[in-house]
């Protein structure tokens, strides 16, 4: 029975919106009740992303519903098409039109013919079963499918012209607590270890213009499983290989770099890697030492999506000697962390109670993420 005593699961529609809502010069239009978009705006405003998509809603009334009238949608698209600052328009599925069976895709097909200068993307994952994960996957896939330039004579991106190797970073989505910091850490490592530059970061740091060059990248780095479908599309269409995996912990990050060395056929800068390891040694050794002293406190319980759960688990339970038990450190979403007052809570996923005001917060991924996790865990172990 779908009774929730705490925050319920988010839907496919929410996954779509949270993914696409971060794109700088796009607009998302919902043909549905407007209360949802106001809340969505609140969510996006709390992500700390200052430039993001415009969120709009048509609202609808009983007459629209009874007669299946889509005029509000048509007129809204007509108006948005005049706004030259909007580079892409996403039509978000909404529960009421889904319920009454309005074929939004068919309406959008007509609108696409009317406004050829503006990419109008009608999104799936709006049904009543779709999960947040399916919504994120659908959104990332649509970006990879519709936006990269397919013309051979298109102007290559400046980075490609200058000879720098490039990559797409796929899966930095604002449902994760440190999504922005994690992406920044990956970019820092890629620069330091491989002298590579990101073409775009899907989706926490990209505009529609950057999306056009995804097909030129040397590789796609996929941080979460929802990004694999998009990466496969880029591989299929443009031959861009991909690597799926997120670097957590020191061993995890070294392993991740090694995999990329193999895939890219180049050696990472050993000086950079050694410096990073050296820098983190103090926190890592301290953590190991305290864990040996305080076995009674060496417990971590992780509740989150598969990728972060697997990544942090391998660091905490494998590289370090924490035990997967409840009653000590809890890594979970903000609501659960606040509710479990007895535990030492660390927020790993965002909820309505999350505020990302500090865009320079430490990451959880990579070398600096490992250092941050060690320091957080030490706070608990030494208390």
């Amino acid at each position, binding site marked *: 029975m779908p009774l929730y005593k705490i925050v319920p699961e988010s839907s496919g529609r929410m996954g779509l919106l949270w993914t696409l809502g971060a794109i700088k010069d796009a607009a998302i239009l919902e043909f549905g009740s407007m*209360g949802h978009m*106001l809340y969505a705006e609140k969510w996006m405003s709390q992500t700390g992303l200052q430039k993001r998509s415009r969120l*709009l*809603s048509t*609202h609808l009334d*009983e007459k629209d519903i009874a007669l299946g009238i889509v005029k509000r949608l048509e007129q809204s698209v*007509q108006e948005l098409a005049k706004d030259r600052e909007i580079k892409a328009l996403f039509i978000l599925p909404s529960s009421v039109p889904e319920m009454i069976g309005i074929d939004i895709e068919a309406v959008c097909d007509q609108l696409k013919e009317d406004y050829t200068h503006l990419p109008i993307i009608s999104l799936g994952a709006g049904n*009543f079963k779709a999960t947040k994960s399916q919504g994120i996957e659908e959104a990332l896939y649509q970006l990879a499918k519709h936006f990269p330039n397919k013309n051979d004579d298109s102007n290559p991106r400046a980075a490609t012209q200058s000879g720098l190797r490039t990559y797409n970073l796929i899966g930095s989505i604002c449902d994760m607590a440190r999504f922005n910091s994690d992406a920044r850490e990956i970019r820092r490592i890629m620069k330091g270890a491989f002298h590579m530059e990101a073409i775009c970061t899907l989706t926490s740091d990209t505009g529609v213009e950057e999306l056009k060059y995804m097909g030129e990248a040397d590789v796609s780095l996929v941080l979460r499983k929802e990004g694999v479908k998009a990466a496969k599309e880029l591989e299929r269409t443009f031959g861009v290989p991909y690597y799926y995996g997120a670097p957590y912990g020191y061993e995890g990050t070294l392993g991740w770099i090694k995999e990329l060395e193999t895939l890219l056929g180049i050696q990472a800068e050993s000086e950079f890697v050694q410096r990073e390891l050296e820098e983190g040694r103090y926190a890592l050794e301290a953590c190991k030492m305290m864990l040996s002293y305080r076995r009674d406190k060496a417990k971590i319980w992780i509740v989150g999506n598969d990728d972060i759960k697997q990544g942090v688990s391998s660091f905490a339970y494998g590289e370090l000697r924490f035990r997967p038990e409840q009653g000590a450190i809890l890594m979970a979403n903000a609501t659960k962390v606040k509710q479990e007052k007895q535990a030492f809570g660390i927020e790993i996923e965002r909820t309505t*109670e999350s505020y990302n005001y500090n865009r320079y917060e430490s990451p959880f991924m990579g070398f600096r993420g490992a250092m941050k996790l060690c320091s957080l865990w030490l706070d608990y172990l030494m208390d």
Partner: protein
Amino acid sequence: MKEIESRHNESRSNFANRKLNRLSEINSNQGIKFSHSMAEPGSHCPMHTALAVTQRVKGVSSLVVGMPECGFYSRYVMDQPVGKHGELHYVYVLDSNEVVFGCRDGLQEALRIMIQDGAEAIMVIMTCIPALIGEDIKEITEEINAETSAKAVCIDMAHFKRNGYESGFYEVYQALLSLQQNNKQMETHQVNLLGSLLGNEGVRLKEILTENGFQTVELGGSFSLEDMGVITAGRLNIVISIHMLPLARSLEKEYDIPYIFLGAGYSIDDITELYQSIFNALEIKECVSQFQSYEHIQSLLQEKAGSFNNLPYIATAVIPDVLGVCAFLGTLSMKPLLLHVEEYNEWMKEWKTEILAMGQNPYTTYITKRESVAQLLEQVDKEDNLPLLSLGSLKGVPGCCSVDDRKVRQFGSLIGYERTHQLLNTILHSLEESEDAII
């Protein structure tokens, strides 16, 4: 291409006729059209305000029934599943089967679980999809009420039935009466104040009532469900907040408690008459000169009445009784051009009639893009060389002076002469502050 162009032209030509209805064309919420084709991002739905009110009532639990979006984002309001006094705030998210076949069994089970967990009074808040599939949640709650000592009541907060969020206030206050289970015998010395009595005049009114031996029960801000039982014993309901008007009507119908809607009065005569009715009903020998603001408003009107004459204005802020304000400003010969009406209810018809009787018939709309109001004003008849006033923030209209939303809320929180004085004073200040108020 020609076809598209012609569609654009058709849209432009339809703009004034279809989007901007005149007040005379408004008979329900359905008549209030959007000012623009869409909202960016939108405004709150009535579920939001319903939860905001429920959260402040001690002893009342809530159950939001709807889709994941309703359930998830409603936690911005109900951030804790257990309230300060043990109230429970749960969510029932319809699954894909229930969307098709109904949620009767699941919802009944959910209510039983809430009752087992300790909820005694449950506000069941129905959102768009349950309303759309026609689930009879009222009947479901009645069945639960029959089998337990706890009580549940359902309110229909489907957003597609209105534009705004005002019904969240109206319906929760009214539904609270159905949740309380402690009817009292009439106390001849108890007066209920429905809404918060603020400002000097509010304080003075309370003093007058107390000095004359009356005990006041004030429902405003936070209160408890027990208070809802207490007010069933009142001798008179003085309605301060328009949001409590449906509650007052229910109290009159079900408990024979008369009410006087003090919030209805803006003019000196109307306010005086309302106070006199209160004093007569309570057999109090007082007169309105008790209120300092009575003198203030009289002086202001004697000195400045001419400043309001023929002054054109628009209202962009959410003013729940905007038609009441408009009817009053009409008596000062101010000219309404465009009004944002958040929601229209049948008891507002009296104000509408008064406005129309004055020969005024402003455009009435639900403003979705305040920054583009200038575009609307292009179609509004206005006399040149007159200042334009906006009740509510407004940018991008040259020569317009506006009373910002905060000040609009300030006068709305007061009562009687003080409220009118504050309203007019604020308008005068805005006119004075605007050096370039000529359009």
